[in-house]
């Protein structure tokens, strides 16, 4: 009797710029959809796992909202997108060890209308902004040294990292553009994506600067919405509705205390360490994956982590995309849903949703034919993880 972990159900809400719903309501909808998708009942679920920084809904509240009364395992990770694969892998470990039998995993946020990641004060359209308040914000921890200089948001940090890569390897803005353009092409076939308008290199280069070298198209699209999934054992999934998707392996890495400023080499990320570990654990090679859902808070994150996970030679990611090697008919389809750049920023959990949909052969117009193996990554900079998913058991 195998307790190997599988994903047996997935669910999500619509993604939008203004949900006009609570994060609890959206999480509950995504959870209910995932349970139904699996062909289970709420009472079959006895574990819940989520991760959050900023906007979220408490795991136990979401479980309660969908009719789960008895929880044997409850995990709330405090952290950002670097936990987007860990939360699934940890749920997998929980069912594998027998701590519980079926886990609801979710991420819910009003990332656009509520609390925005791209703003120091977190101001969204609803909350307004500290720019109009009279009292200054106070910043403790290691960020107290950076924040007074107007340096405290992710699009600033990663643009600064990207600059070092351009300096060292001669990577260009056009290289970043190739990533944004390819992912947008993919989003054109994804009705769930919030941004589907075609862009070419001219459009990309005409995009407004956010923080040089990042233009608007280099940055994740902040949206409102929720994604949920059910993780259970291979044994339990056997008589359920959907083809299960196996969680084959996971590897995560955090270095240098997660301190962005002190990470020794900005041209590399956590993937430098997590990558080799992941391939070793999965027993496969980078060119064995059909789909790569690369965490793309920014285009540069895709660039650095594709190098780190060994999908591409260093400094060659731009030409890899330009030559069509990262799209349909190429070596690996990167972010077939359009990624966080075009589908929307559900903090990376929508990457796992897409991978499962593809491996179940249910991605319709954007289906990667014959896809059996997917890489899903999470995080940027000093921390993150990678996960290998496979169709069936």
């Amino acid at each position, binding site marked *: 009797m195998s307790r190997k972990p599988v994903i047996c159900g997935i669910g999500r809400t619509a993604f939008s710029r203004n949900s006009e719903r609570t994060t609890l309501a959206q999480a509950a909808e995504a959870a209910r959809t995932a349970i139904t998708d699996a062909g289970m009942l709420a009472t079959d679920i006895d574990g819940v796992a989520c991760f959050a920084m900023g906007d979220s809904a408490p795991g136990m509240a979401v479980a309660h909202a969908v009719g789960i009364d008895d929880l044997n395992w409850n995990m709330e990770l405090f952290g950002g997108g670097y936990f987007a694969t860990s939360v699934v892998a940890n749920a997998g470990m929980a069912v594998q060890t027998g701590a519980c039998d079926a886990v609801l995993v979710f991420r819910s946020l009003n990332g656009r209308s509520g609390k925005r990641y*791209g*703003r*120091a*004060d977190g101001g969204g359209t609803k909350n307004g*902004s*500290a*720019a*109009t*308040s*009279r*009292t*200054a*914000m*106070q*910043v*403790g*921890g*290691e960020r*107290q*040294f*950076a*924040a*007074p*200089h*107007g*340096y*405290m*948001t992710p*699009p*600033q940090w990663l*643009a*600064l*990292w990207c*600059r*070092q890569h351009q*300096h060292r390897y001669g990577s260009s803005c056009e290289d970043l553009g190739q990533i944004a353009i390819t992912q947008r092409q993919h989003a054109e076939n994804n009705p769930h994506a919030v941004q589907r308008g075609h862009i070419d290199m001219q459009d990309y280069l005409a995009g*407004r*600067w*956010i*923080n*040089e*070298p990042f233009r608007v198209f280099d940055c994740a699209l902040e949206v409102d919405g929720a994604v949920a999934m059910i993780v259970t054992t291979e044994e339990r999934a056997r008589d359920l509705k959907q083809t299960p998707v196996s969680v084959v392996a996971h590897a995560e890495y955090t270095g240098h205390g997660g*301190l962005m*400023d*002190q990470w*020794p080499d*900005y041209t590399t990320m956590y993937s430098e360490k997590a990558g080799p570990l992941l391939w070793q654990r999965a027993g496969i090679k980078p060119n064995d994956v059909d789909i790569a859902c690369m965490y793309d808070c920014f285009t540069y994150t895709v660039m650095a982590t594709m190098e780190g996970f060994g999908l591409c030679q260093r400094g060659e990611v731009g030409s890899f995309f330009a030559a069509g090697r990262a799209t349909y008919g190429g070596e690996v389809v990167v972010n077939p849903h359009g990624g966080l750049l075009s589908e929307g920023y559900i903090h990376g959990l929508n990457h796992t949703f897409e991978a499962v949909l593809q491996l179940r052969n249910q991605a319709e117009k954007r289906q990667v034919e014959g896809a059996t193996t997917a890489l899903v990554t999470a995080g940027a900079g000093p921390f993150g993880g990678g996960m290998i998913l496979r169709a069936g058991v």
Partner: protein
Amino acid sequence: MTTTSLPPQPKPNLDTEGFWQATKSGQLSICRCQECQLWLQPPLERCRQCGATTRFEAVSGKGSIYSFVVVRHGAVPGYLDTLPYVVAIIELDEQVGLRLPTRLLDVAPETVEIGQRVAVQLVDLPGGEFRVACFRQASD
């Protein structure tokens, strides 16, 4: 309204207050192990390498630009009206990999390059009692 907004203020604790006391008195100082001499940024009460006590010691205030970003989108209070501005990570001369985030003063963004030499200049932070360590392009 945006003109009245104040930049984020540091919120020192027992481990970091020595840094801010030093800048207020006109000196850039960095936390240093009193045993193995390792410089520590961010500051720690005890050395991460050997566990010995630490204290803040003056540094030369000279270093090189490790990387930088030209901020063109206002996202931080106090900086909404001052676009663009250049944020840099400075590697101080005292130790390989000893880095400090900073803002470059009086600089044309297109003249900034990785590896350029810089020197510290302490500047009053609007809105409070703190002085922050900014840097300027320098010849040595």
